[in-house]
């Protein structure tokens, strides 16, 4: 039984919580007692924030549309396809024909990488996220 200190994935309060892990399965959540925001409390979403993580509905492998149908693919093939399609679009229509939406649910590091990808790799400032919603 391990307790991993982390941050709630729901609202912007950023409550501290512990994920309880046993044999690779998340078995529960408990609030951080001394966290400056939640002081040992959590809301109903925080208390249940562990449940969706290991849900069998999770996307399990890359899917690529072939003949109009999404089909299972390997990472290698999927990434190759994306790389060639994005490069092709950039060459044909210019970098500004590509738009990138990052996510307010991703970490800071991921958002930083996304913006670097848009600006340095693609060469466009067309990057945004759903902050407005």
């Amino acid at each position, binding site marked *: 039984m391990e307790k991993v200190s982390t941050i709630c994935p729901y609202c912007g309060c950023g409550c501290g919580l512990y*994920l309880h892990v046993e044999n690779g399965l998340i078995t529960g959540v408990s609030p951080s007692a001394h966290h400056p925001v939640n002081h040992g409390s959590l809301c109903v979403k925080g208390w*249940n924030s562990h449940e969706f993580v290991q849900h069998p*509905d*999770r*996307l399990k492998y890359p899917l690529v549309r072939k003949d109009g149908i999404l089909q299972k693919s390997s990472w290698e093939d999927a990434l190759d396809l*994306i790389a060639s399609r994005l490069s092709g679009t950039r060459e044909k229509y210019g970098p500004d024909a590509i738009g990138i939406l990052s996510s307010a649910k*991703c970490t800071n590091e991921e958002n930083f*990488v996304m913006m670097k990808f848009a600006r*340095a790799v693609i060469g466009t400032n067309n990057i945004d996220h759903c902050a407005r919603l």
Partner: protein
Amino acid sequence: MAGLASAFGSGAMTNSISEIADARVIFVVGSNTTEQHPMIAMHMLEAVDRGATLIVADPRKTQIAAFAHTHLRQRSGTDVALLNGIMNVIIGEGLVDINFVRRRTENFDEFEKVVKRCTPEVAEKITGVAASDIQRVARIYATEKRSMLFYSMGITQHVTGVDNVRSCANLVMLTAHIGQPMTGLNPLRGQNNVQGACDMGALPDVYSGYQKVADAGARKKFESAWRRKLPSAPGMTMIDMFDSAREGKLKAMYIVGENPVMSDPDTSHVVEAIRKLDFLVVQDIFMSETAELADVILPAVTFAEKDGTFTNTERRVQKVRRAVRPMYGAMPDWKIISELSKKMGYEMGYRAAHEIMEEAALLTPVYGGILHHRLDAFGLQWPCPDADHPGTSFMHRKKFAKGLGTFNPIEFTPPEETTDMAYPFILTTGRLYFRYHTATMCGRTATLEREEPECFVEINPKDAGRIGIRSGNSVKAVSRRGEIVVKAFVTDRTPEGIVFIPFHFREAAVNLITSPAVDPVAKIPEFKVCAINLVPVIPKPGERPKNHYNRKEDLKILNELYEEPEVPS
């Protein structure tokens, strides 16, 4: 955040959550705090228990409003008039902190001219809030020294969203409720890492730390670090991207962890735009409405399967730690992008999340001291310029981030859509306590899913009586763009003339009918005001209760059966 940035030079909650309990006045505008930020509401309640005065301005009677000493129920979309009215009283009654205004701010005279015109009586006419209430709130807010102002989507999701925020900033500067503990202007951010996504430059016009892409100096710094030439013109916002896609100009999109088909206003336009794209990649943890339209879907991991940091609404950068191995074949988003970059000829070469943060810290002044090894024990609050800095619990001490704070003269402008005979109700949308966004996460959590299983429209008893519906009846909500059918929930939580529909539900996606109007500066959609009509749905005869077994022979059998019951002996 554009509104805040133009006034103070920095867009974030100025103060800290832990200060709330010691405040004397808490003024909440357009935030359903108990439901949307429960743990912040907990601190507010604590302050009230300790004797603070709570003022809530919200058309709906939310739970936080029930604790308020004064609840102002302004008409939707009239926040500017309400705030101008309050500031008019503050100026008129000499409650302005004139020293602060002189030393720390600029453009007061222009601003004063506009506010002078908006007397409480004028404001009353526009907002529906009694002039006496406006006066009282102005006096309470201005005379206490430890006054905190909070706002949320109720302020920003309007055509006048930026104006609303600037008005709030004006109010704070007028009374000098900024730059000290237990004061400030505090936007409550909706999603766990919206603050971080903005901080890290996932925006079309700025790099991380709000360094402008148009600024040659900043650009040069990033160019030399990244060894690539970078574009200088600001890019497109999300709304612009969909418009551009619809026009056939934007050809490909890469969407990470978002579900714009559900979350964006005017759904059918978004779908149309996406269908026009040559190529769409969606990276997410569950299948979503948007992913269903994608050419490639990549499985990403949840917060429990990766390391990294989130920045909460009070600018606290906190560590997210990997608890379990990535499920199935999923990968962290940063790793996917790294791999993809490699295939596109750009080696990022990150091996762990902390390496990325190290680079971000180097390039981002406000994150300069934010390094993973410093973040144990509840993180650090930016601005944190260097590795010895303890972080900043409240901002704009002694001077604003941009130097002088700017008063913006704001005139009241009515919302984009107003009601008329055909569309007599104002629709405002929002979230529910048990639900979150487009329900990809909470929909897979038994307790949350159970509590609010179906979509509804909150409607005032008087309005309900007028159109002849009761709780539980089906109603059709019709706007100029579309219609959805929802169950009615009659309650006085919602004032007359306004109805509320939550936006989480796939079966009744309220964004089919919301307005595509956006704020011209921040491009935030007007989710809080849209004119609609409500039409009771009357089941057609024979439709429900289902009667298709009501055939003649059936009746015959039944009638024969009971016509002459045998009398028991």
